[in-house]
């Protein structure tokens, strides 16, 4: 085989990651064409022909890929490459891959039967995402908070009774509370890549039983709304209505609706936030 020197070797234009100027994750080529000549008795002449075809630029994307090929993902990828519009929706609000998206105009109501909605990368990365508890006075002293985990590994809570912004002391908080008429939490989406996951919880500041009612409203920068009912029998404890996971840049919102009869520490620990140091049951160290 004739190997050219690096200086005068012809440039490869068939490998997308070589066209870029940095090391990058290889994109997955099209599924290999499982051709009939894949039988083991093929002689060297057939083999040479196959190689020659593979090196023709217009054929190269059909060449067999490396062992990283996950065949079950191939139909999805080829659907994108075929120019299909992944944003097109079916009548039930799901796109062609079965992912529920928000709809224009109508709020998306999350229930135990339909617990998931996935924000697009634009919705998860432009402006801010706001969680607001819309309540009447009769509910009691309901406060809103969230337990979060950042990509850096840092984990704590942000809540109205403090700390009110996170990371604490940062001039550029990722999550912060703002209570005007209603309790609210805001995520700065310019830093959405910092956020790994969070849960939103509602609690009573005095620890009294609450007459659970009202709605948790999640609003995107573009105005799409996701709503979760907060209605429950009166009880003490901490209600976790919602979790958020950052899945490859897309925020997946899930209705949890579980009430934990205990402290904020127990509620967050039950969702796996076990790397928070606490001052007491309701106040984190940082």
């Amino acid at each position, binding site marked *: 085989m004739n190997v050219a020197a690096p200086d005068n070797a012809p440039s490869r234009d068939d490998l997308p990651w070589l066209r870029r100027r940095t090391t990058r994750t290889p994109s997955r080529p099209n599924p290999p064409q499982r051709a009939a000549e894949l039988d083991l008795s093929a002689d060297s002449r057939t083999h040479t022909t196959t190689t020659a075809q593979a090196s023709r630029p217009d054929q190269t994307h059909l060449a067999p890929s490396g062992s990283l090929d996950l065949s079950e993902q191939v139909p999805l990828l080829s659907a994108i490459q075929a120019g299909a519009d992944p944003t097109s929706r079916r009548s039930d609000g799901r796109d062609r891959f079965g992912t529920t998206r928000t709809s224009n105009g109508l709020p998306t109501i999350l229930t135990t039967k339909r617990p998931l909605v996935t924000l697009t990368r634009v919705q998860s*990365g432009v*402006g801010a995402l706001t969680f607001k508890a819309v309540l009447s006075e009769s509910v009691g002293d309901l406060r809103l908070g969230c337990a979060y985990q950042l990509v850096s590994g840092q984990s704590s809570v942000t809540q109205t009774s403090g700390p009110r912004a996170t990371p604490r002391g940062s001039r550029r908080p990722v999550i912060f509370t703002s209570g005007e008429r209603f309790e609210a939490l805001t995520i700065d989406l*310019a830093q959405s890549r910092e956020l790994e996951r969070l849960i939103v919880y509602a609690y009573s500041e005095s620890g009294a039983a609450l007459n659970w009612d009202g709605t948790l409203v999640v609003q995107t920068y573009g105005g799409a709304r996701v709503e979760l009912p907060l209605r429950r029998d009166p009880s003490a404890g901490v209600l976790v209505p919602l979790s958020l996971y950052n899945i490859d840049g897309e925020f997946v919102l899930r209705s949890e609706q579980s009430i934990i009869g205990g402290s904020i520490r127990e509620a967050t620990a039950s969702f796996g936030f076990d790397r928070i140091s606490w001052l007491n049951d309701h106040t984190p160290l940082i």
Partner: protein
Amino acid sequence: MAAPMKRGSNVALTREIPSLRGVVLGVKLVSAEPVLIDNLVVATILCDSSSKALSNEHFVFFNQLNSPELSVTQLARVVGEDTEQVEIDLSAVPTDVHRIVVVTYINEGNAVRRSLGQLREATVRVLNLADNTELVRSENLAPALKTETGLALGELYRHEGGWKFKVIGQGYANGIRAMAADFGVSL
């Protein structure tokens, strides 16, 4: 080096350099105000012949670094002196994409309000993807800005079978909301 390109001027890239396979759009944004720099976002929008984005997936920015067919890629870490760099493989750009517009905006994620009038420098330059050489560079677009929160910097567009580059330099008073409406991106 050639004189910087003025607002509205254009250059026929592929006619001047027939061998041009891909380009890098390098955006440089300089300000003494760290809060502004923290919240500045550069995005690239792949538009059809009516100047609307093909889809929300054709809005390339830090949370969506590739267009679906991988023709446009924003680098997570730049190579060189720019603030952000966008690599464009011209031959891989879908045929229904007619304009590729690079914009910047202030992300209003927190309560702090800033404007692009605090920028000291805002330039866009075009590099040859193959060898990193600078082909053209815009004039400094910052001095004309005041209270704007969005800025269309420049665009690549198809012209007579090739690609041209044009310096736009148009500010938007209403930032990303106005630009998203203009380019048909649904936020």
